[in-house]
């Protein structure tokens, strides 16, 4: 099959490391080779802070979509613009698409192996999410993978798996938990976990706390 995208190959790559990202990887490489650190231990420390990295913008996007039907519509039609309207922007050229969970369909996002994970919106990806087996298994057996995460979906609910492309990133809009009509957007945002925005979890129910 012929590739028709040749024309923009020169100014666009799937992956890119900033100078600082690359410097940190260089340090990690040397220190690992010398046996002074091991990447698993580093991941474990980083994981401690996963929810504190990035401004958790995505949770506020979800809360607003729950509370304001007009915003939800906008998000459905043009997530990039709707998210940008809140002042949250990713890197240049990063387009977002919002996929809404419903009673019929649960959405699951794969692919964070490369540098394309929209952490500025979703926060840091979990350590396991970067593992190649997750990606392939999520595609083949999404229900089994979700089961391992303790997420059991109703029998009739379909699972749709989204694989982000170099230009398009996804955010899952989880279903709003029952009994949250009286909560303001700030309180609603507290119910939105990082995992619920990639589809490996559901939003917390009211009173479940952090």
């Amino acid at each position, binding site marked *: 099959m012929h590739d028709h995208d040749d024309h923009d190959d020169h100014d666009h*790559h799937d992956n*890119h490391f*900033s100078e600082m990202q690359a410097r940190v990887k260089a340090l990690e490489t*040397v220190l690992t080779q*010398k046996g002074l650190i091991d990447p698993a231990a580093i991941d474990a420390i*980083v994981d401690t802070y996963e929810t*504190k*990295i990035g401004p958790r913008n995505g949770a506020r996007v979800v809360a607003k979509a729950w509370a304001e039907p007009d915003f939800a519509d906008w998000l459905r039609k043009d997530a990039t613009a709707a998210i940008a309207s809140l002042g949250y922007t990713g890197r240049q050229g990063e387009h977002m698409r919002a996929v809404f969970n419903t009673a019929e369909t649960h959405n699951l996002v794969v692919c964070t192996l490369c540098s394309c994970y929209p*952490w500025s919106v979703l926060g840091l990806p979990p350590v396991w999410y970067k593992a190649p087996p997750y990606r392939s298994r999520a595609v083949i057996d999404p229900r089994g993978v979700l089961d391992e995460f303790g997420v059991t979906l109703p029998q009739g609910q379909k699972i749709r798996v989204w694989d982000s*492309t170099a230009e398009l990133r996804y955010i899952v809009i989880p279903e709003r938990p029952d009994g949250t009509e009286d909560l303001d957007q700030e309180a609603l945002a507290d119910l939105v976990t990082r995992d619920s925005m990639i589809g490996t979890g559901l939003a917390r129910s009211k009173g479940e706390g952090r």
Partner: protein
Amino acid sequence: MNAFEPTLAASPGLPKSHQGDPVFAEPWQAEAFAMTVRLHEKGVFSWSEWAEALSHELYKPGRRADAGDYFDCWVAALSRLVTELSITSQEQLNDLTQSWQRAAEATPHGKPILLENDPGR
């Protein structure tokens, strides 16, 4: 007291949340922080050595007024310290940095970015 506190105590000006936890603007900053914590724990350098290396970078002229380059200084301090301890050289770090950048560019979407992907290696 958690394991990171000596690092926190030895790192003046570290951006922190109201709860006193470090706040990172980007994942690489957390990785740099985590590596420093590990090297500490392993006794590769003492906290006074770290504090001195970091201050040296933080008080260099030409810092950004909004302190948005705090972790740039952090990485510079860590790089200097490990070269001073002869764990590596500045040249090796520079080579590897460029190598990682080429590797990223050469890695197609959906594949893990590995150093081996650098066509120049």
